């Protein structure tokens, strides 16, 4: 497999996971702010 695709796949996976995690943290913060 082309190494470029491996690097790209890992980079996109890490970025996607980080993005979803930050979104979840923000959702939790918003819930706590409403209380």
């Amino acid at each position, binding site marked *: 497999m082309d190494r470029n695709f491996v*690097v790209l796949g890992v980079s996109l996976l890490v*970025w996607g996971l980080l*993005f979803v995690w930050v979104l979840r943290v923000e959702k939790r913060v918003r819930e706590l702010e409403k209380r």
Partner: protein
Amino acid sequence: MVLRVLLFLWIAVAMVVALLKAPLVPMLEETTRVLYFHIPAAWLTVVALGWSMVNSIVYLVKRDLRADDHAAAAAELGLLFCVGATVSGALWAKAMWGSYWNWDPRETSIFFILLLYTAYLALRGSIEDEEKRARLSAIYSVAAFVAVPFLIFVVPRMYETLHPDPIINPRGKVDMDPMIRWCFLAMLVGFTGLYVWLQSLRVRVSRLERAAQAA
């Protein structure tokens, strides 16, 4: 939410173009890819630590704890990006120089920055009183940031280094393929957007912590 999705797509598209379409720098070859992560991380280290210093000065002038929240959040994120720049730099050094750490002037400089701001967080963690913690941390942050431009811009230029030229090289020019330059700038903008988002989120968490302690 729209801005967040745009940020996600911006960085994802920049990654695709940078890793699949942009040419490799002849001297760096396969390690060119590190450029798109290492330099934005190093850039945000300086931006975040600078923002921490600005808010520390604001705190010392106005004695407003919201400025202290910003200063602490920026220092934490600056340290996080500094770790990112150090790790990506060490991986690059392994590929190009044969070992992860060589005590090159740039590596030594970033090591001192890591120490300086780890000490800042240790200082914050050691003081219970909110006002005293904010005051002493602000003084420390201002003093620590005085060393940052010196460590990043002066020290590496005073000694022989194996590190490639910075983006604006000693001849005052940006010698970079236009495609690489655009990808690099796109990543820089994307990472800066991510930093702004994380900074605001960390400040909101600090305010929640204070409200919880007061309750």
